[in-house]
């Protein structure tokens, strides 16, 4: 049954709902695949075989009783980023400070997945508290890129992206604060979507930067991402920043796009996200993709967004500022790690010792940056200025969307770099999110779709497609059209060119689980 793991979510759902294959068989095939390849990939921090099989069994029972499936994706397995709370299942955010914590509640995203009959296989690796672009900042060791185990899978959602590329799961959930869904999608040759801010509930998403964080779907095809988007999206009264409006019609848009016609669609190429500083193979793949869009009937124009140049700087003030406050709660008083509670230390000392031992260097760096940026006397110069930049970037977007329907750029300046290459150079690491950050700052929608391999290293390149607030369907339409054309030109989906991974025979799921 190994071929079950090569199918798309839509195909799997079709077979399960037609009762050609059981959800349990599908779940087991993926659990077996995880057991076989995860020692080499390390996409998962926790595999919940028992919970997954129980969920799959429930779907099978529903179908056997002649009742309709709970959703179009009922029975399909999924890998959940370890930043969403799962009741009774470990949630670490890639940090030692949450080691052993069993949340007493489900995130809204988790709840909606369960209600939709989606089978959650486990929790995926990530940069600690979603801070990073390589998953090297995980306290539990790095995830490897299935395209090349010496390369990073992107970050912070490297685990979710690698799980897709390693065929451990056909669907995954990520979160995107500055590119943590799109950049891993780009460097693993998978699809990653950051919905409009407020489009997917943040309730139960452990916050890094509240005004930027956005959960979203990850998949190997545009349609699968759209199907998942409709499951997790929509208003949630528990999240005050959630938008009270229907989910944009992304599935319909993906199906429309797959017909292959983009006539009448105006595509803007962002001039600031092109040229110098980009890997040549990335640029050539990107330019070829733009030509492809033109060939599909789109009208392509160049658009300038001058303030995007300040995006990275503004981001590295706003995100650390918010994180310095969001992460203050990890103080050893109520949950998680507790260091030095031996009767000789005061509560304040226990807090300090715990935070010293529990947070990794990148998290500490950002907490210090943010604490400084919010300090009396510095607020206006740093946080205040950054918020103004944010407004200017939003205006650039607004002006651009007067002229075009979607904007495009490369998702990342380079393909996947080597593990260890940038760990000592935070600024070089931060540049990985150069192209993705503007959409977070403005709060509008953006996604990455695979656009070929770079000629110099044979690694995947991502095409970023951006759309206005709550116009997520526009980018799905363009992405789906592009995907069909690219697959036709390449003679099949790019993802099927991932090299075969070394399988570990005879190791059970339990041993893989942390």
């Amino acid at each position: 049954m190994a071929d079950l793991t090569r199918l798309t979510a839509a195909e799997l759902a079709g077979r399960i709902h037609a009762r050609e294959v059981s959800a349990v068989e599908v779940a087991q095939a993926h659990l077996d695949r995880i057991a076989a390849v995860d020692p080499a990939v390390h996409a998962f921090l926790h595999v919940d075989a028992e919970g997954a099989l129980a969920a799959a069994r429930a779907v099978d029972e529903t179908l056997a009783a002649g009742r309709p499936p709970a959703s179009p994706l009922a029975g399909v397995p999924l890998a959940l980023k370890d930043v969403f709370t799962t009741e009774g299942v470990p949630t670490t955010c890639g940090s030692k400070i949450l080691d052993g914590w069993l949340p007493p509640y489900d995130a809204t995203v988790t709840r909606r997945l369960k209600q939709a009959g989606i089978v959650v296989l486990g929790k995926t690796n990530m940069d600690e508290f979603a801070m990073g672009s390589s998953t090297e900042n995980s306290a539990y060791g790095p995830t490897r890129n299935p395209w090349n185990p010496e390369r990073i899978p992107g970050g912070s959602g490297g685990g979710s992206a690698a799980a897709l590329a390693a065929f451990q799961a056909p669907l995954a959930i990520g979160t995107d604060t500055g590119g943590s869904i799109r950049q891993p999608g780009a460097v693993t040759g998978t699809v990653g979507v950051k919905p409009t801010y407020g489009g997917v509930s943040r309730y139960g998403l452990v916050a890094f930067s509240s005004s930027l964080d956005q959960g979203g779907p990850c998949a190997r095809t545009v349609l699968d991402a759209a199907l998942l988007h409709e499951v997790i999206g929509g208003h949630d009264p528990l999240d005050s920043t959630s938008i009270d409006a229907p989910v944009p019609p992304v599935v319909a848009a993906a199906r429309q796009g797959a017909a292959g016609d983009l006539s009448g669609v105006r595509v803007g190429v962002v001039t600031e996200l092109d040229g110098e500083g980009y890997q040549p193979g990335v640029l050539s793949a990107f330019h070829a993709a733009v030509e492809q869009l033109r060939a599909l009937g789109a009208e392509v124009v160049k658009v300038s967004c001058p303030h995007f140049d300040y995006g990275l700087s503004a981001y590295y003030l706003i995100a650390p500022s918010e994180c310095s406050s969001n992460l203050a709660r990890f103080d050893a008083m109520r949950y998680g790690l507790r260091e030095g509670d031996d009767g000789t230390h005061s509560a304040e000392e226990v807090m300090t010792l715990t935070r010293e031992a529990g947070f990794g260097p990148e998290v500490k760096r950002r907490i210090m940056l943010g604490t400084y940026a919010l300090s009396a006397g510095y607020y206006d110069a740093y946080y205040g200025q950054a918020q103004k930049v944010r407004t200017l970037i939003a205006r650039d977007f607004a002006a651009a969307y007067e002229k075009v329907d979607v904007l495009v750029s490369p998702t990342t300046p380079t393909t996947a770099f080597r593990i260890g290459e940038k760990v000592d150079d935070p600024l070089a690491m931060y540049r990985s999110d150069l192209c993705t950050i503007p959409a977070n700052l403005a709060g509008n929608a953006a996604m990455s779709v695979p656009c070929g391999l770079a000629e110099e290293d044979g690694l995947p390149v991502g095409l970023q497609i951006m759309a206005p607030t709550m116009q997520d369907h526009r980018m799905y339409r363009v992405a789906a059209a592009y995907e069909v054309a690219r697959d036709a030109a390449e003679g099949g989906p790019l993802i099927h060119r991932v090299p075969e991974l070394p399988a570990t025979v005879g190791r059970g799921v339990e041993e893989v689980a942390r």
Partner: protein
Amino acid sequence: MTATAELMDFADVVERFDPVLGLEVHVELSTATKMFCGCANAFGAEPNTQVCPTCLGLPGSLPVVNGTAVESAIRIGLALNCEIAQWCRFARKNYFYPDMPKNFQTSQYDEPIAVNGHLDVVLEDGAVFRVGIERAHMEEDTGKSLHVGGATGRIRGAEHSLLDYNRAGVPLIEIVTKPIVGAGERAPEVARAYVTALRDLLRALRVSDVRMDQGSLRCDANVSLMPTGSTEFGTRTETKNVNSLRSVERAVRYEMCRQAAVLAAGEKIVQETRHFDEATGSTSPGRRKETAEDYRYFPEPDLVPIAPSREWVEQLRTTLPELPWERRKRAQEQWGLSDAELRDLVNAGALELVAETVEAGAAPGEARSWWVSYLAQQANTRGVELADLPITPEQVARVVTLVAEGTLTNKLARQVVDGVLDGEGGPDEVVEKRGLKVVSDDSALLAAVDEALAANPDVAEKIRGGKVAAAGAIVGAVMKATKGQADAKRVRELILERCAQ
């Protein structure tokens, strides 16, 4: 510095210095649920039973604003003559403390919901002092720490601490005055009168229990002195743990005398938080504030701004009750009370109760007498607020009616009230159950009178001989025989009739 610092005589203090006050009052709103989650907002539950992921600050949890709390905040702002913001936001106040689940308090900073108002405060002698209101803003309460094992109950020296998060997230309104200047020797009195007026106002608005003893109304008193005639404010101290109206007055007075002594000795006031001790009436230094705490305020990104529509604000304005002092004035005129009588009534917390009793048909004088004397004593004995006694104004009115009708004597009426307070039912039910009706049947009384006269022939002889005063002894005997249920006046008449035959 010791807790019992040198004090300057108050008369000298006001001779040499002008006090400047700033009062910060925290009010816990009596909403059904907490500020940002659906947990119950009730005092006195088992520790850590009214909690959820949000008020425990669990990872991933998010706040949702309580609409009723916003409504209360706006009504308070309007009652304090404030401008209600067209648009306001919450902000995070960042500092670490174990009883604060998120290690930041969701509060309001530079964009409060209500600003720039005033409260006119009536002093003992009827003088009116206008206290400026700087702002009123919304925030959440913290949890409670119980420090075990130390001598003081404070964190220093404690063996361990217990944390109760039931209070975490309870809606608070913080009301901050503008600097109160020009009160001079009346500063302590103004402080007390302000907090009293605020309490009465909040009670009339029905937004809070305003129980200082339970912490639902808390006052921090900022005090500084400047040399008489100066306009430059001196260094201030902030006194906390001021848990009663009387303490507000005492704390301000103590700080004025203490600071004056320090300044007169040529020393400087240390900017600090001070702790008021009810037992000694003195303040002692707490946390030093010289290195001003940096709370790193920034707008709360988990909440959206609040923009109350003008229609809503105006609609809320129509829900404002009659202001307490206007209410008092009206009652005084209607019921023809002297200033002293009004003061007693207000101090007993009986004004509304009397009004409701009058409304239920009792004469104002009778209604007032019941609440201010007998029922006030009962409340005192039982250790409850007058309003919390288990008797309604309607029931008091019924007792008054029964007395007026002659069904009860005053003495019997008190027994009926006792029965109601003891849960034996309404007044009529108690009369019935206890058999407390006045014996007005003359034949029953006559039998008792005859019996008493027969038992005391010498007294009967004296009465017959014209010594009418001697009838008292027979009255007493009859009353005793009827267990006090006879109308003494009627008994006396019957005795005299019998002896005249």
